[in-house]
């Protein structure tokens, strides 16, 4: 299907010197020229795991790639979008992304879908039946697990999908392996006619290293062939393919037994043999350079014969895997006496300390000494940005007592934190509307607190609009706050159908949220567009809509401060002669406002009032004016000379 390539990358530095050539992704794309191949010479590039997957997919001849942004997976498609030969898109959600990859594969093109771990939950309906249809051209699902739960609502182990769907799982340890395993994944996918899951973790996705890159293959194009028994999964046809799943699993296991990515590394210290997958392998190797190791890159189906060989050569076995004990349980079920989560952490990353502690426990030795403790310092959680249009929304919600706020996933989830404390739930993408409806239906008759759902533009389009239709259809009376900041902001400002741009920044049709809400059945009178910086007006609309006994939607009109269409205003400063230290402006939670002096004041009635005098960091201020609307003394004034 694919032929050796006939391009190689020549860069300026290579012509001048024989020194190692290390190129970043940007340089490869901006400095490289494509020249006819004379003599292939291996090159190294400085890439993150995500960039390495993109590079390898391009080398493998991928022509269609789709994803929904999500940390830590986002850079895979961002990198691929720089290759002009590859059609890449930000799909509406992960399910659509996977379906696009499947369609491209059916049409005979190698394809890639990328998503974070929770994205696979959304895509899983399609994935589980793709496991029956299989694929035509190679298809790789690159999944990034947020091990350690650094920027997600949960920590889940995507390797379960391999067990669930009888699909192969590949687990790279670093960027170099991510590159090589992506190349291998496409070959494997075509050999067994199944999607291959490339299971990455944060510590692979976001780690940069030197990667041996290769020449691109020449992509070929097959043709979609009608095959009803294969592609039309009605019960009769699906049933016919169930047995095939199990035959394939046996074939996959045989491949895994012989795969070069599953290898025994012999060692002289045989007290513990380690069975390891993923990036923990690297920490393990630094801590125990002399230990025997069974390194699994093609970890499902588990190569049991290889494991048996390995087990016979060591005293004890310790399985090191992130995060669930999947290999451990399968080995135990096959009769192996192994240790794993009994001595290793049940969640989070497995670092060198954890492996050394586990080994010490198994060997009956004293645990390693703990290094110096950290010095006590305040937590510094992420904040909303200076001038963020969400600030006004949460200021208003915080002032509205007796309201239940069902939140969603995006920057605005930060509204749950200080100083606003303005969200009461956050569960999954698009969940705010269904939860709001359930809160209303499930509450007691005496509980009359209004219920508000808060959701951003990209999340609403991802999976929130179904919840709105459901709310309208079933006569719910919640108020939806649609925070349209014209960006998928939390992951770095990616494009979505609400931005009027597509991946790469090119113009695209822009969805009209008001018209969409009307089409879903919200009455025109209950569709309000408001400026979140104009606090009194915004608050008035919010009061009106939560009182309405029918579904309503308030759409905010200001872009993210990082969006291309954001315009900065004249920055503000504090007129210290006017500031009374009331601290009202601090309720906005804008990081540009800081306290410069605190004071206690004894009032004539004997009460003590705390004063907080503030300043505005004018360099950070966007001049949105929100804080000025909280100030009864008009002490927040434009910086002179910048008007």
């Amino acid at each position: 299907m694919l032929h050796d390539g006939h391009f190689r990358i020549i860069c300026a530095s290579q012509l001048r010197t024989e020194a190692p050539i290390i190129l970043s992704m940007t340089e490869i794309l901006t400095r490289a020229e494509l020249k006819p191949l004379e003599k292939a010479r291996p090159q190294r590039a400085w890439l993150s795991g995500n960039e390495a997957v993109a590079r390898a997919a391009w080398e493998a001849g991928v022509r269609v790639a789709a994803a929904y942004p999500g940390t830590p997976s986002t850079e895979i498609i961002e990198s691929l979008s720089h290759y002009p030969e590859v059609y890449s898109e930000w799909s509406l959600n992960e399910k659509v992304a996977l379906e696009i990859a499947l369609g491209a594969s059916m049409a005979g093109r190698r394809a890639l879908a990328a998503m974070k771990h929770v994205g696979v939950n959304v895509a899983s309906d399609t994935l589980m039946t793709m496991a029956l249809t299989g694929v035509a051209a190679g298809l790789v699902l690159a999944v990034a697990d947020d091990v350690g739960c650094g920027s997600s609502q949960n920590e889940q182990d995507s390797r379960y999908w391999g067990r669930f769907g009888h699909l192969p799982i590949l687990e790279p340890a670093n960027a170099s392996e991510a590159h090589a395993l992506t190349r291998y994944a496409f070959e494997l996918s075509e050999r067994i006619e199944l999607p291959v899951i490339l299971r990455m973790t944060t510590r692979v996705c976001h780690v940069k290293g030197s990667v041996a890159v290769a020449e691109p293959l020449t992509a070929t194009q097959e043709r979609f062939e009608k095959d009803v028994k294969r592609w039309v999964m009605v019960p009769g046809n699906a049933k016919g393919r169930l047995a095939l799943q199990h035959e394939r699993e046996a074939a996959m296991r045989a491949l895994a037994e012989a795969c070069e990515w599953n290898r025994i590394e012999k060692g002289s210290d045989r007290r513990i043999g380690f069975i390891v997958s993923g990036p923990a392998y690297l920490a393990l190797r630094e801590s125990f350079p002399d230990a025997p190791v069974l390194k699994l890159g093609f970890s499902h189906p588990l190569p049991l014969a290889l494991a048996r060989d390995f087990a016979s050569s060591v005293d004890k076995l310790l399985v090191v895997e992130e995060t669930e004990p999947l290999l451990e349980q399968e080995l135990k079920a096959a009769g192996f006496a192994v240790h794993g989560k009994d001595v290793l952490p049940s969640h989070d990353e497995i670092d060198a300390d954890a492996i050394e502690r586990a080994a010490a426990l198994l060997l009956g030795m004293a645990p390693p000494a703990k290094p110096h403790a950290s010095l006590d310092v305040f937590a510094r959680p992420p904040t909303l940005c200076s001038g963020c249009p969400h600030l006004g929304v949460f200021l208003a919600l915080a002032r509205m007592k007796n309201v239940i706020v069902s939140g969603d996933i995006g920057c605005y989830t930060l509204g749950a934190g200080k100083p606003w404390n303005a969200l009461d739930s956050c569960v999954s993408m698009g969940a705010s509307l269904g939860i709001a409806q359930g809160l209303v239906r499930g509450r007691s008759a005496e509980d009359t607190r209004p219920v508000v759902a808060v959701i951003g533009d990209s999340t609403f389009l991802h999976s929130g609009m179904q919840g709105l239709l459901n709310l309208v259809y079933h006569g719910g009376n919640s108020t939806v706050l649609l925070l349209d900041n014209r960006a998928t902001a939390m992951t770095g400002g990616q494009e979505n159908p609400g931005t009027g741009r597509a991946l790469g920044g090119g113009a695209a049709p822009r969805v009209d949220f008001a018209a969409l809400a009307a089409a879903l059945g919200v009455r025109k009178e209950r569709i309000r567009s408001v400026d979140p910086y104009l606090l009194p007006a915004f608050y008035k609309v919010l009061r009106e809509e939560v009182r309405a006994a029918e579904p309503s939607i308030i759409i905010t009109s200001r872009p993210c401060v990082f969006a291309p269409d954001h315009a900065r205003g004249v920055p503000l400063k504090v007129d210290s002669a006017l500031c009374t230290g009331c601290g009202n402006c601090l309720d906005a939670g804008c990081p540009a406002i800081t306290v410069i002096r605190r004071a206690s004041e004894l009032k004539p009635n004997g009460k003590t009032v705390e004063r907080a005098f503030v300043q505005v960091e004018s360099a950070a201020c966007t001049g949105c004016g929100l804080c000025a609307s909280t100030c009864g003394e008009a002490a927040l004034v434009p910086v002179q000379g910048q008007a």
Partner: protein
Amino acid sequence: MITNILVAGIGGQGVMTAAELLARAALTAGLEVTKTEFAGMSQRGGSVCSQVRIGEHVRASAIRPGSAQRLLALESAEALRYRAYLAADGIAFVSTLRAVPPVVSSGASTYPEAAAERLRESGVRVIEVDAPGIARSLGDVRLANIVMLGAASSALPLDARILQAEVLARFARDPRLAQLNAAAFAAGERLALAPAA
């Protein structure tokens, strides 16, 4: 021999840029390098740290607590946060910048006084760098990360000139920016070489 360098600060300060420049300079110097980030939501003013490991036979990307030979803290309270990573013979380059977050402004938390002094008392060598002052005098506070790189450059296991060249290459497309960053690097270098440091 592996040198572990931890660059810490807050989102938007250029922590990742500084770490990237360090890593690329080490690559140019012919060393093995890994770089990893601990920054879930880095653009949002949260704590950010990037870890660079350079030398021979570098495998794992994470720096183990107690094993960082250098800490470049672009914000003074952040230097305290990452104390546990420093090796006994580690050197901390600490910016005098105090970035006070809303949790402190609102009175919910307090900002540590004399952060550099507390770090010194904990038993490591501390070099304070007036990176914000120098950057501001050059006209742009965003140059502070390059000032810090310059200040640390003579204490890194690679030629300071290679690092300087990386800084220049990064901004090569904009002569004005290249000049400013070169000046920031040089000012940092001078500061660290001064007897008081």
